[in-house]
């Protein structure tokens, strides 16, 4: 039987206390926004096993857990991460701790922060207009919980060379909700790196929206590094105008639950969306990627490459859907999911879907899953290299193609440090 239970049914008996973020410290328009989000959130259905996207993720038990945690958007000075990492000469660094802004380099005009201590009114229009095109339970969930927000908005024709580093750090057995809005104005460009880290059993509801105006360019890198008992629910949307281009790379190390839900809408002709994601869960972690790409204009292009390396008893989920709408000509779309299971107990569910309503389309998809190639392993070992290192080389070789596409040397170095056997010579 189809489960059409509404979130409301879980919510009314919960301990979730939203008073903190609805307090009088915030302007009336903000409280209105929160209230509307809450009303909408309660009306969403709880995703069930009949819902393809959520089939392999136990989202109902996660929601129950969520409603029995305390919302704690506050900074504990004792738990603050090392401030040294704030100073990076080559990048603008912005730190959030438990969902609250706490430190940054000097901020240029294109970066704004909404928090208790910052000017709130510049955000009035942002929250008034509908910035959540997806309007999923995930984005509404973030809206009811979040306290601080980061807005990165360029001017027209502004090419920003300095990378922006966002560090989202959490350190409590609580719910936190980081929120980032990116607006790349006409003929401008940005490079952003976001690092999401948690140290304890947090539930993190993460939201990011990207809006790219005509002829704009965004490079986005994301590293999701959670503690094993963290639950991480991320939703990200990209709306793209004519001739705009988004290049996105994300690496998820997995968590108790880690799931990233992405929607890309290619609304302007010749817009391009490139998305590469790597997930490497271990232990009993869950790592999921749900992705939808909608081709809504002529001559748009999407390239999706998802790679999973799964260890121990971990579980990976990929759901990807490319939709080419009627009346849309000259679409080029490619979606690939490859998985390497390095333990007998790891599992992967992969579901790439194409939904095409126009013949003038060049579109392909593929999905593969396999374990380490024994002949390759034997070959490497036969040259004197121990088994553990040989396996690492093969994993490195499996993810190399994605790493090669990263243009930021800083990010590349960071990844190479994490995976010592990624060979940087080929």
């Amino acid at each position, binding site marked *: 039987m189809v489960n059409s239970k509404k979130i409301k049914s879980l919510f009314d008996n919960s301990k979730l206390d939203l008073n903190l973020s609805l307090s009088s410290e915030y302007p009336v328009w903000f409280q209105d926004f929160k209230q509307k989000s809450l009303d909408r959130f309660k009306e969403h259905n709880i995703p069930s096993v009949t819902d393809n996207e959520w089939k392999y993720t136990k989202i109902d038990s996660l929601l129950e857990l969520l409603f029995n945690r305390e919302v704690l958007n506050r900074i504990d000075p004792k738990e603050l991460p090392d401030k040294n990492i704030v100073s990076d000469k080559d990048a603008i660094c912005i730190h959030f701790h438990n969902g609250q802004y706490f430190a940054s380099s000097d901020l240029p005009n294109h970066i704004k922060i909404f928090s208790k201590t910052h000017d709130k009114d510049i955000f009035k229009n942002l929250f008034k207009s509908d910035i959540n095109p997806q309007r999923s339970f995930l984005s509404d969930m973030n809206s009811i919980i979040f306290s601080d927000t980061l807005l990165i908005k360029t001017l027209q024709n502004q090419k920003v060379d300095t990378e922006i580093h966002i560090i989202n750090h959490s350190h409590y057995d609580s719910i936190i909700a980081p929120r980032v809005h990116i607006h790349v104005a006409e003929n401008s460009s940005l490079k952003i790196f976001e690092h999401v880290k948690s140290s304890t059993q947090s539930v993190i509801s993460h939201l990011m929206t990207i809006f790219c105006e005509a002829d704009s360019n965004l490079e986005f890198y994301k590293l999701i590094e959670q503690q094993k008992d963290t639950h991480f629910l991320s939703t990200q949307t990209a709306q793209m105008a004519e001739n705009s281009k988004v290049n996105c790379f994300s690496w998820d190390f997995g968590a108790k639950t880690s799931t990233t839900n992405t929607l890309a809408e290619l609304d302007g002709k010749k817009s391009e969306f490139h998305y590469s994601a790597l997930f490497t869960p271990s232990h009993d972690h869950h790592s999921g990627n749900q992705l939808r790409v909608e081709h809504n204009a002529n001559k748009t292009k999407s390239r999706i490459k998802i790679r999973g390396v799964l260890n121990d008893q971990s579980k990976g989920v990929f759901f990807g859907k490319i939709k080419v709408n009627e009346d849309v000509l000259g679409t080029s779309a490619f979606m690939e999911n490859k998985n390497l299971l390095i333990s007998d107990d790891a599992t992967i569910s992969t579901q790439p879907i194409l939904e095409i309503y126009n013949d003038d389309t060049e579109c392909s998809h593929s999905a593969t899953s396999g374990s380490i190639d*024994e*002949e*390759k392993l*034997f*070959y*490497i*070992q*036969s*040259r*004197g*290299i*121990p*088994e553990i*290192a*040989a396996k690492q*080389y*093969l994993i*490195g*070789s*499996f*993810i*190399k*193609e994605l790493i090669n596409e990263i243009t930021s040397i800083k990010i590349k170095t960071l990844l190479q440090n994490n995976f010592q056997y990624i*060979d940087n*010579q*080929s």
Partner: protein
Amino acid sequence: MSIEDKIILKIRDLSVSTDGNQILNGLNLTVKKGETHAIMGPNGSGKSTLAKTVAGHPDYLITSGKIKFLNKDLSSMSVNERSNLGLFLGFQYPIEIPGLSNTAFLKAAINAQRKFYDLEDISAHDFLLQLKSTADQLGLDQSFLSRGVNEGFSGGEKKRNEIMQMLMLNPKLSILDETDSGLDIDSMKVVARGVNSSRSEDSSTIIITHYERLLNYLVPDYVHVFFDGKIIKTGNLELANELEKKGYEWLIQKK
């Protein structure tokens, strides 16, 4: 030096099965330091099985008998330990590993060997010098070094690459499994020169081949004929020449 010290490889009564099929049936073979042995024989006679068993391929199960390499029992040794001790297998079908460069792979292999002997990692300078001169010796273009291991290499290039690995690792015993198959005459000369340059009083070579041509360049001390998982005849280069003319039928019938 005792006789035992002169022996590099000693195989006694070796029986091996793979996938439930018995391939080697009581094989005996002794290789001394400085010797070159050739192994010939019809398809399916167990030549490659011997090579893979000695190198420690997990699919090959020793059901009876013993293999001693440098007077050490190989059966309890991992694949990499065998290599570190000085054993080299030149693959019949070298494996492609995209994403791992030849250079990085060779450096890791050399350093693994050095670690085994408690030596420090090779310096970048020494490594590159050695790599460049070995590649030149084998007529391998520098661009091969930065490409993925065997990735997109032609058959001949893959075999030259095997010989390059052999020369860089400087093994005590090399087993070359059909290194000559798929090589044109010029490539074969290059490979033969490479193998000859590695020969010394202390190292030995086993060449598995179907043709006398490579053997004419290498001149083995012994030529063994495999059939049904064991050696049915041993001779010298003349035996290889005879086999080239007459095939294996006469030997098998005689048996």
